[in-house]
């Protein structure tokens, strides 16, 4: 392994300072003197491998490895403090510009690929709120600023891995499965034989009263709401550092253990207490609190447990994506200044956009769950 130095020359800058208000200046000068002593500098070169001060020469064999050729040494710019004081601002600009050029030239993949879906406030630990507000006229930003260090951190994580993480089902790969599902809707469904492959509009005719009813619109809205709450909540849980499996379990139990059970069981677990003759109504009437049963079943309230259930389903997908992100990339993003929550949350959003399978699944199940409940409850449900 060999090292090379740029032929164009370079700028070396490394040093110690004594603060103006230092309580013991004499001690500080004594320390500097000891540090700049020839023996100390030689030991520094031998032990650490860093070049000694300009006037000290280390051993020839060591100089061969860590030193510079006379030409390269001549090309080096040994800056003075006064010079740096005068040129601090342009120097920083030069460094920044150089880094930017390097970034753009070396990796065309590193480009802005932020997908703004939902931007929820950080629950502490991420970039401070004040910092974020300063970026854009003291307002919480809807979109991320391009030049912020946090954005650069996010970019690394986003562009590198999240977009092509793991073996997830990407959007375009969903076209065929969705087409197959659409084709199923033209099959006929018989009680005993279940799905019979044929081509008929029977299902659409049969369900047209429901589809045309305003309940269809409500179903879509409830399903959309379920999807949004589920994915946002799971995202935030994951970005808070909760273990993906824990999030799944939590959602699963929160939604009643019926998340993967059959409709009848699910109805008994979750919906029974709010039925007309359910536990709640019977209890309240028993104690004389109400005289007529509450019609909770006919409102949208029973859909609340569904939100939790959808979270469990969505959590599985997102957690999988979250796990598949290269840890190195995340850490690189951290070292560029991104907060813990930023990286995770950004990755989650990115995954959600690139791998919409979980989102679509959640939406479909949301519709299914609500419609089943709604239809089975009563024809006059709202």
């Amino acid at each position, binding site marked *: *392994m060999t*090292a090379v*130095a740029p032929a164009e020359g370079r700028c070396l800058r490394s040093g110690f300072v004594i603060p103006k208000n230092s309580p013991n200046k004499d001690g500080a000068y004594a320390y500097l003197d000891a540090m700049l002593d020839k023996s100390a500098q030689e030991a520094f070169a031998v032990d*650490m*491998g*860093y*070049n000694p001060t300009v006037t000290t020469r280390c051993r020839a064999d060591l100089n061969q*490895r*860590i030193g510079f050729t006379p030409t390269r040494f001549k090309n080096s710019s040994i800056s003075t403090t006064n010079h740096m004081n005068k040129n601090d601002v342009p120097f920083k600009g030069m460094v920044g510009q150089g880094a930017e050029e390097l*970034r753009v030239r*070396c*990796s*065309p*993949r*590193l480009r802005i690929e932020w997908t703004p879906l939902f931007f929820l406030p950080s629950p502490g630990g991420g970039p401070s709120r004040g910092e974020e507000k300063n970026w854009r006229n003291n307002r919480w930003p809807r979109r991320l600023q391009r030049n912020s260090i946090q954005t650069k951190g996010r970019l*690394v994580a986003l562009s590198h891995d999240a977009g092509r993480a793991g073996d997830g089902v990407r959007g375009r790969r969903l076209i065929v499965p969705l087409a197959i599902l659409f084709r199923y809707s033209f099959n006929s469904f018989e009680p005993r034989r279940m799905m019979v492959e044929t081509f008929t509009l029977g299902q659409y005719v049969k369900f047209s009263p429901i589809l045309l009813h305003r309940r269809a619109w409500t179903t879509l809205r409830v399903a959309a709401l379920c999807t949004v709450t589920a994915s946002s909540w799971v995202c935030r849980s994951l970005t808070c550092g909760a273990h993906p499996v824990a999030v799944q379990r939590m959602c699963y139990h929160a939604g009643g253990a019926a998340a993967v059970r059959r409709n009848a069981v699910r109805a008994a677990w979750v919906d029974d207490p709010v039925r007309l003759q359910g536990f709640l109504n019977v209890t309240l009437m028993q104690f004389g609190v109400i005289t007529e049963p509450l019609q909770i079943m006919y409102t949208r309230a029973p859909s609340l447990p569904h939100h939790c259930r959808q979270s469990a389903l969505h959590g599985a997908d997102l957690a999988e994506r979250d796990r598949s992100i290269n840890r*190195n*990339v995340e*850490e*690189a993003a*951290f*070292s*560029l200044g991104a907060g813990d929550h930023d990286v995770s949350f950004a990755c989650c959003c990115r995954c959600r956009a690139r791998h919409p399978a979980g989102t679509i699944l959640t939406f479909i199940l949301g519709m299914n769950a609500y419609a089943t409940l709604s239809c089975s409850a009563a024809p006059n449900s709202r």
Partner: protein
Amino acid sequence: MQETAGMRIYPTNEAFAQGLKSEEFGVGVMWKARVVQWQKRGYFP
């Protein structure tokens, strides 16, 4: 080589050394002194 395209950023010097050792990359920007330290410890020839 796991990947052939693009730039890689390593979060720490140690991660850089590991990447170099495992031949994830061949050329990188790093403190010269760090290279000497690694050679002294026998990480690299």
